[in-house]
């Protein structure tokens, strides 16, 4: 959980890049058996629970309007801060809006933020990482820029971007993704550096394969397993960062509800209506928990060395 708006470095979670450890790689050779292993891990214990819960959250996000929710934005100041009742299953917030509907609709924004940040972070990180990993000259410069980027606290970046171009979903997404990029770059660069010395890459070079095809066909596929795993960690920390940013008033516009927003607005009434923080908080924590567990299962499935330790 990003304690300070500066999300946990996902590469710290992924300890070491999944470089094809020289000489010890005969384990899982093709994607097919990795998926089989992944399906096996999914069928038992925590991973199964994680998948079910994620399915529920995604289901809630898609069919929120059908789940007995009213308009999450409709305010009714007369019914402020009501306790859970028949019409309002989870009570109402400071503007009299139905908390249950807002939490349901909130899942949409949080999933979009999570997914968006993961995809954007991985895509940009992959591009820069490949360049840094393959072109020696670019490497030194790019990595220094990444160091610099990591030193800027995420919260400053977020507030600056949000106030620069208004609190829209896109700016918040960019603000959350930028601190993640240096970590993805570092990971991808690690993989590219270790893969470029692999015999099958050198064989391709001697076969006259042009650089772009060489990168795409032989090197980038190796970055896929670690990137998929890192994507899950970014997904999880993005949802939490959005909550932190909203908590500090630099997140999404409060009109459309996201779990972060609901909690931020409910912060003041914690001891009066703890539900305002707990309901979205629990759902948020469980979603992040399941994404992390899924991330672990994926990492172990895709990294033969760790598989044995499950």
């Amino acid at each position, binding site marked *: *959980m990003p304690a*300070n708006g500066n999300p946990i470095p996902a590469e710290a*979670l992924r*300890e070491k890049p999944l470089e094809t450890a020289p000489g010890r790689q005969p384990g899982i050779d093709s994607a097919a058996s990795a998926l089989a292993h992944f399906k096996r891990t999914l069928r038992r214990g925590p991973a199964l629970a994680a998948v079910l819960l994620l399915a529920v959250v995604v289901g809630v996000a898609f069919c929120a309007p059908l789940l007995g929710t009213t308009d999450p934005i409709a305010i009714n100041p007369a019914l402020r801060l009501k306790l859970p009742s028949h019409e309002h299953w989870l009570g109402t917030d400071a503007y009299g809006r139905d908390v249950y509907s807002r939490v349901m609709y909130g899942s949409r924004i949080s999933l979009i933020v999570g997914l968006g940040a993961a995809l954007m972070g991985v895509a940009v990180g992959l591009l820069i990482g490949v360049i840094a990993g393959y072109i020696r000259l670019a490497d030194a410069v790019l990595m220094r820029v990444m160091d610099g980027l990591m030193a800027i606290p995420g919260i400053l970046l977020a*507030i600056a971007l949000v*106030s620069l171009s208004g609190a829209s979903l896109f700016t918040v997404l960019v603000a959350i993704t930028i601190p993640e990029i240096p970590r993805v770059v570092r990971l991808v660069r690690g993989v590219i550096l270790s893969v470029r010395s692999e015999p099958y890459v050198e064989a391709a070079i001697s076969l006259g394969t042009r650089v772009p095809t060489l990168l795409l066909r032989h090197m980038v596929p190796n970055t896929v397993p670690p990137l998929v795993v890192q994507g899950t960690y970014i997904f*999880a920390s993005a949802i939490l960062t959005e909550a932190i940013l909203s908590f500090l*008033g630099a997140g999404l516009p409060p009109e459309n509800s996201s779990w972060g927003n609901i909690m931020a607005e409910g912060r003041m009434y914690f001891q009066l209506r703890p539900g305002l923080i707990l309901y979205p908080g629990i759902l948020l924590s469980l979603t992040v928990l399941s994404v992390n567990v899924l991330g672990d299962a994926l990492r172990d499935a895709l990294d033969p060395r760790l598989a044995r330790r*499950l």
Partner: protein
Amino acid sequence: MLAYIARRLLATVPVMGMVAAIVFAILRLTPGDPAAIIAGDAATPAQLELIRRHMGLDQPIHVQFLLWLGQLVRGDLGLSLISNVPVMGMIADRIGPSLALGLSTIVFTVIIAIPLGVIAAWRRGTLVDRAVMAFSVFGFSVPVFVTGYLLIFFFAIGLGWFPVQGYKPLAGGFWPFYQRLILPTLALSTIYVALIARITRTSILDVMDEDYIRTARAKGVKESTVFMRHALRNAAVPIATIVGIGMAMLISGVVVTESVFNIPGLGRLVVEAVLARDYPVIQGLILLFSLIYILINLAVDILYTVFDPRIRY
């Protein structure tokens, strides 16, 4: 070794210069300006313009940047635009609490997390291992303000064991000082214990596959000694890395915990300065953070040589 440290420190200058330039540009592009903050509600545009000229904000950006660099070289971070107090002083007031909270959390975390990680690795696959890992994943997933409020609700309000908020410097006696750090340390530690326990476990398990572990067993060495003397020592490098990263993040301010427990740390100063567009303070802070970040990385690298004789500079 000293030559290496000197070289590393010299290399920080361009990085910090670049960071300062990026931040300077972002700030100047951000709408809203400090003059409006000072003048308050009823200021007319003319008055705003005058205040801005006094603060030198009307000059082109690069001139302002050079001016600021000039001051920086002389070691002066300038005055806060809002409260005319030297930036260096403001930061100095805040370093104490941030350092105290950061150190207390890191030490508490290391004392709890490393043994936890070791046990999880030692009892791999058993219930204990799963429990530790489940706790660690959960530790990641709960926002710190939820944990913070719950801790205050039960221990400060409910049982009254700890004060609700505030920070007392160490000079005022150890207990009043540390009493106020216990709850925030607990709130933060749920995250960092999770992170470090996890990585301790995984790096130990990575090491257990190494050949020298098998050699140690072949020497008839007890499994616990194999674990502690051979495995843990070799797993120290990745563990040191994550502890370093954790430390850097804690020092650079955990704004949410600081606001929930009202600890006047660097995190809160960043948010206040950004919201008030107090440019000199923001720039001073960013330089401080990048310096902290780089110094901690350097410290961790040097620590590597202690743990692993193969690494020499």
